[in-house]
C-alpha cells in the first residue's frame, strides 16, 4: 500500500477493482464503511457480484482479465474531459517531458520487439534529454510527443464501444464509473484504489496495476490522504515476505538478484544504481552502494572486506536472462531437472495452477522436505488421487512447524507497518519455528562442509548463522530483527556524531558503503533506535494529525512514513492541497505532519527536491520504461480467452510471456469445447488452499464443499439445478463441484456475443475433509505474468456438464 488501512476512511471515492475486499480482507471494510458514512462512494468492478458488491454504491461487471481495457477507457475519459489535476501533473509527473522520436507503437507492439526471443529492446523507450542530461519538457503540454499527448494517443483507441465489447461492461456502467471516479481529480477530493489478486493474477497483471497508477497520477491521487494505489496483501505478512525477498528475482529491500554477467560487486552496484543529472532530483537509489555493502556485511560479518568485494563473489547467481519463478521451477521439476525440493509453508499441489502438472512434477523428485503446521495435499502428494504410493520414488519428509502465535517476530501489514508480536502459546510437541529449522539445517550443512568439503564452500562457510537462542534450540527472532535493522560494525564518526560498534543504525540515512555498517534490509533500518529499543513493539495511540497515522504504533517503513510520496500532497510552497486533510505542511522552516519524504524544503523554495524521490527523475512516470512489456499498459487477451481476436490489435496475448510446452500444458482458447470463462478465488471462510482452515470444523461447517457459481441464465440454458453436482472441465483437468445457481453472476456481451462466466475457489483438497472435493487449480492454465511471473489464475476457459 502507498497508504494504509485506516486511511481508507478518508476517501471520497473508493474504487475496488480486482479485489473482493469485504470477503478477503474483512477488516478493511471497517474503514470502507466509515468512508461511506462520511459520504464517500464505493465502486466495485468485478466479474462476480460478491459480498463487496453488496456494500458498493456502484457495481460494474467485467470479464475476467480485461482491466486494462476498462482503465484505459478511464484514462481516455480523464484526458478528454480535462478531469486531471494539471498543477500536479506538471510539477510531479513526467507528463510534460518529451518522448524520443524512436519510440513507436503499432499493431499492438511497441518499438524494439524481437519476436524470436519474445523480448523487447527497450532502448527506444526513452525521453529526450537536453545538453545537461536533464529531460526536456514542454510546460504548455502542446508538444505532440510530450508524455501526456503520447498517453492520449495511446488511450484514445480505448473508446466506449471497444472497451464495452472487450470487457462486457455495459457502456452506461463504464461512464458511470468513469464520471464518479474522475470527480476526484480536484484538490479537495481523494480517490483510492483497492486491488488484490484480481489484478495481479494475469499475464498482464503488472501492467494492469500500472494503468491504475497512471489513472491515479492523472487525478493527483498519489501521496495524499485518502488516495493511493493500495495492494491488499493476502495475509498479515505477505508484505513482510516480499520486503525480505521471498521471490527469486531480488535481494532484501528490492535490489536486483545477482546475475552471472555481474561478477564483481562494483559491476553489480554500477548496474543497480541509477544516476540523475537533475539537481532537483533526490534520486534516492543513488544510495544503493551503501545498501548493497551493508547487506553483504549483515550476511558475512567480519570476513566481508573491501578486498574480497564484501563477499559478493560468494553469492549464488542466476544466469543472465534466467527465469526461476515458481512456474519455471515446476516446469523444470516436471522435466526432471530438479532433484530435491524444500517446500516451506506452502501447498503447491492445491495452490499452483494446473495441479495435475504440479502433482506429476513432484513424482519426478528424489526427495522433498515439507515444513508446515499441518499435513496437506503437497506433503502427502504421494498418496493423492491416481497415484500408487508404491510407485512414487520421491522420498518425503514432513517437519512440523510452529504457527505464528507460537513464536516471536514481526508481521508487516499491507500498510507497511511492522508490528512486533510476542509468542502467545508454547510450541506443541517438537514443533520448531521455520527459522530454527533453517538455521539448524545450515549449521549441519556447514559442519558437513567443514568435514567433507564440497562445491563452492565460501558462501556457506562464511555465512553468519548465529541466530539460535542460547540453548541452541530455537530461533532468536529479535537478534535477526536487529541485524535486519543494521548495526555499526565498528566505532565510527559520521558528521560530528560518534557511534559505537554493535549499536543499531537508527535509519538508512546513516548506512555506509565502506563496511562500517551492516544492514539486512535497508527499508527496515530505523526500526530500532540507537539505544536498542525495538520500535516495532510500540503501541502508542497518539494521533497528532487527527488523520489516523498513529506514528507511535509499531514502525512503518520507510522511516515511519505512513503515506509514501507525501510531498506530492502539497503545492510548490509546501501548502497542503487539501487543508481539510493536511497530511503534511511546511511550517517555520520544517515539515509538520507525517514523516516527510526527505528533509528538503518544498519544491518552490531554494534547495527544494522533487517529491517522487525513488524515481531518478524525481517525478512519477506516466511514461514508464521500466517494465518488460511496454511503457504504457496495453490490453492483451488472457492465454485462454473466449475471443478469437484481440479487439485492440493483432497481438492476441502478451508478447513477452513464456509459453510452456510440456505435454501437460494444453491450451484451448476460443475453443467451442470450452465456451465458459472461469475465474478463481478464495472465500472468506477459508485461507488459500484451505490447508490450514479445512481442519477447523467451524469453518468447514460454514463452507463445507467445493462449488461452482453459475448464473441463472446459464443454468437455464443447460438445465442445471441449484445444489446439484456437476463436472467442470478444461483442457487440462476436470473436477466435480456443487452448482451454485445465482443471480449474482450474469452473462456479459463480449464482442457482440453473450459470454458466460463461472467462478470457483481453490479452498478445497482431497486430503480433508474427505467429501470436500478438490482444488479448482486442476483447471487453470500454467502461464504467468510477463514481468512478475504471477500465474493467470483469474481467467481460463472451461465447460460444465451434469455429473456423469
Amino acid at each position, binding site marked *: 500500500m502507498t497508504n494504509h488501512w485506516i486511511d481508507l476512511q478518508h476517501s471520497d471515492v473508493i474504487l475496488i477493482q480486482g479485489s473482493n475486499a469485504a470477503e478477503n480482507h474483512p477488516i478493511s*471494510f471497517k474503514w470502507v464503511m466509515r468512508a461511506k458514512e462520511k459520504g464517500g462512494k464505493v465502486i466495485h468492478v468485478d466479474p462476480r457480484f460478491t459480498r463487496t458488491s453488496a456494500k458498493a454504491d456502484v457495481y460494474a461487471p467485467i470479464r475476467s482479465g480485461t482491466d486494462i481495457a476498462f482503465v484505459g477507457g478511464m484514462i481516455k475519459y480523464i484526458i478528454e474531459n480535462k478531469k486531471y489535476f494539471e498543477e500536479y501533473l506538471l510539477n510531479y509527473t513526467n507528463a510534460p517531458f518529451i518522448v524520443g522520436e524512436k519510440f513507436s507503437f503499432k499493431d499492438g507492439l511497441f518499438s524494439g520487439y524481437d519476436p524470436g526471443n519474445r523480448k523487447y529492446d527497450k532502448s527506444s523507450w526513452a525521453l529526450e534529454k537536453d545538453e545537461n542530461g536533464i529531460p526536456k519538457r514542454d510546460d504548455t503540454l502542446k508538444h505532440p510527443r510530450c508524455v501526456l499527448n503520447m498517453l492520449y494517443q495511446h488511450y484514445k483507441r480505448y473508446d466506449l464501444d471497444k472497451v464495452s465489447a472487450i470487457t462486457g461492461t455495459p457502456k452506461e456502467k463504464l461512464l458511470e464509473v468513469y464520471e464518479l471516479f474522475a470527480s476526484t481529480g480536484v484538490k479537495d477530493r481523494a480517490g483510492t484504489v483497492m486491488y488484490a489478486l484480481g489484478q495481479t493474477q494475469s499475464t498482464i497483471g503488472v501492467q494492469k496495476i500500472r494503468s491504475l497508477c497512471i489513472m491515479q497520477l492523472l487525478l493527483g491521487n498519489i501521496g495524499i490522504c485518502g488516495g493511493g494505489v493500495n495492494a491488499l496483501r493476502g495475509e498479515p505478512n505477505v508484505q513482510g515476505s516480499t520486503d525480505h525477498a521471498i521471490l527469486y528475482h531480488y535481494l532484501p529491500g528490492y535490489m536486483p538478484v545477482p546475475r552471472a554477467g555481474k561478477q564483481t560487486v562494483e559491476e553489480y552496484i554500477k548496474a543497480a544504481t541509477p544516476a540523475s543529472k537533475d539537481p532537483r532530483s533526490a534520486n534516492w537509489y543513488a544510495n544503493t552502494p551503501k545498501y548493497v555493502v551493508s547487506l553483504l556485511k549483515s550476511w558475512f560479518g567480519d570476513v566481508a572486506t573491501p578486498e574480497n568485494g564484501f563477499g559478493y563473489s560468494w553469492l549464488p547467481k542466476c544466469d543472465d536472462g534466467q527465469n526461476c519463478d515458481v512456474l519455471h521451477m515446476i516446469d523444470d521439476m516436471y522435466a526432471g531437472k530438479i532433484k530435491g525440493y524444500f517446500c516451506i509453508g506452502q501447498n503447491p499441489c492445491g495452490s499452483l495452477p494446473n495441479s495435475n502438472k504440479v502433482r506429476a512434477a513432484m513424482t519426478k523428485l528424489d526427495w522433498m522436505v515439507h515444513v508446515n503446521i499441518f499435513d496437506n495435499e503437497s506433503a502427502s502428494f504421494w498418496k493423492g488421487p491416481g497415484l500408487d504410493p508404491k510407485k512414487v520414488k520421491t522420498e518425503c519428509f514432513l517437519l512440523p512447524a510452529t504457527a505464528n502465535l507460537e513464536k516471536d517476530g514481526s508481521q508487516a501489514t499491507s500498510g507497511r507497518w511492522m508490528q512486533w508480536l510476542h509468542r502467545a502459546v508454547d510450541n506443541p510437541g517438537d514443533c520448531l519455528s521455520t527459522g530454527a529449522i533453517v538455521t539448524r539445517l545450515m549449521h549441519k550443512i556447514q559442519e558437513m562442509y567443514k568435514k567433507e568439503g564440497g562445491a563452492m564452500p565460501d558462501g556457506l562457510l562464511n555465512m553468519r548463522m548465529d541466530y539460535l537462542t542460547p540453548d541452541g534450540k530455537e530461533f532468536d527472532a529479535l537478534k535477526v530483527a536487529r541485524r535486519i535493522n543494521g548495526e555499526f560494525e565498528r566505532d565510527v564518526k559520521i558528521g560530528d556524531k560518534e557511534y559505537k560498534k554493535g549499536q543499531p543504525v537508527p535509519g538508512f540515512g546513516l548506512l555506509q558503503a565502506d563496511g562500517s555498517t551492516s544492514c539486512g534490509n535497508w527499508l527496515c533500518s530505523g526500526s530500532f533506535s540507537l539505544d536498542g529499543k525495538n520500535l516495532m513493539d510500540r503501541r502508542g495511540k497518539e494521533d497528532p494529525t487527527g488523520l489516523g497515522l498513529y506514528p507511535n504504533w509499531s514502525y512503518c517503513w520507510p522511516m515511519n512514513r505512513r503515506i509514501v510520496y507525501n510531498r506530492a500532497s502539497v503545492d510548490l510552497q509546501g501548502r497542503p492541497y487539501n487543508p481539510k486533510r493536511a497530511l503534511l505542511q511546511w511550517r517555520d522552516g520544517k515539515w509538520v505532519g507525517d514523516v516527510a519524504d526527505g528533509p528538503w524544503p518544498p519544491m518552490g523554495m531554494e534547495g527544494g527536491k522533487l517529491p517522487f524521490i525513488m524515481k531518478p527523475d524525481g517525478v512519477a512516470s506516466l511514461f514508464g520504461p521500466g517494465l518488460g512489456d511496454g511503457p504504457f499498459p496495453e490490453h492483451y487477451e488472457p492465454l485462454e480467452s473466449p475471443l478469437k481476436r484481440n479487439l485492440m490489435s493483432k497481438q492476441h496475448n502478451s508478447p513477452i510471456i513464456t509459453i510452456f510446452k510440456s505435454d501437460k500444458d494444453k491450451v484451448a482458447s476460443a475453443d467451442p469445447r470450452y465456451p465458459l470463462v472461469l475465474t478463481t478465488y478464495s472465500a472468506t471462510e477459508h485461507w488459500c488452499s484451505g490447508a490450514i482452515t479445512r481442519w477447523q470444523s467451524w469453518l*468447514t*461447517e460454514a463452507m463445507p464443499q467445493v462449488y461452482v457459481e453459475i448464473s441463472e441464465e446459464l443454468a437455464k440454458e443447460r438445465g442445471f439445478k441449484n*445444489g*446439484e453436482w456437476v463436472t467442470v472441465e478444461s483442457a487440462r483437468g476436470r473436477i466435480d463441484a456443487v452448482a*451454485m445457481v445465482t443471480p449474482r453472476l450474469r452473462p456479459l456481451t463480449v464482442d457482440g456475443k453473450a459470454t458466460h462466466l463461472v467462478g470457483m475457489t481453490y479452498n478445497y483438497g482431497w486430503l480433508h475433509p474427505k467429501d470436500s472435493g478438490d482444488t479448482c487449480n486442476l483447471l487453470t492454465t500454467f502461464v504467468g505474468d510477463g514481468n512478475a511471473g504471477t500465474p493467470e489464475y483469474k481467467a481460463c476457459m472451461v465447460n460444465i456438464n451434469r455429473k456423469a
Partner: protein
Amino acid sequence: MSDGKSILVDTSRCTGCRGCQVACKQWNDLPGTRTKQAGTYQNPPDFSCDTYKIVRFAEGKKEGSREPYWYFFADMCRHCMNPPCMSASDKDEIVQDEATGAIVYTKETKNIDFETARSSCPYDVPRQNPDSKVLSKCTMCIDRMRSGLKPACVLSCPTAMEFGEREAILKLAEERVAELKKIWPKAKAIDADEVRVIFIVTDDPKKYHTHAQA
C-alpha cells in the same frame, strides 16, 4: 434500574463475513456440525442446539431490474422485552436477567414443552437438543456481560454490530435509520420497542429472512 443492555445489528453495514457465527461457537464451546454445500453460502442451514447464531444469506434481483441484491442477516435471539417464549415456562426454566435483560434458557428447559416455546417465538429461535431435551439459543453472552465484556459476536464484528446500554443503542438506531432513510426509504429498526437485539434493515424485512420481523 437501568433499561439493561442492547445489541444493534446494522445489516446495512454487515458484510456477511460470519465472524460472529464462528465467534459464537468459539465462546460457547459449540461444535462445528457436518454440513453439505446446497447451493448457497448459508451454512449451517438453520439454528440448532449447536448453533445460536447464523448469518442468513438472501439474494434476488432488484425490482424491475437485472441488478442483484444480496442481504446478510446475522440472526440470533432478540432477547425480547416481554418474551413470548416465556409462556412455555412455568417455573424458572426460562429466566430474564435483571441487570441486563437477557433471556436465558436454563438446563431445566428440558422439562418444558419445546413446541410451545418454539411456536411462541415470533423469530423462530428456540431449538432443542434431541438427546438431553434441553432447549437452547443465544444467551446474549450473559457470562461475558457479567464480567464486563462485550458479547463474543459483537467483539468479532468488523463493521455492523454495537453493544451498550439500551437507551444509547436505541438512540444510535434512531439516528442511523434517519440517515439511511435518505437513500433507502424503507430503512427501519425492526421491532425496536419490543426487543433488545435490534436489526436495522434497508428493505422489506421479509426479503432478508422469513422471521426477521415479528
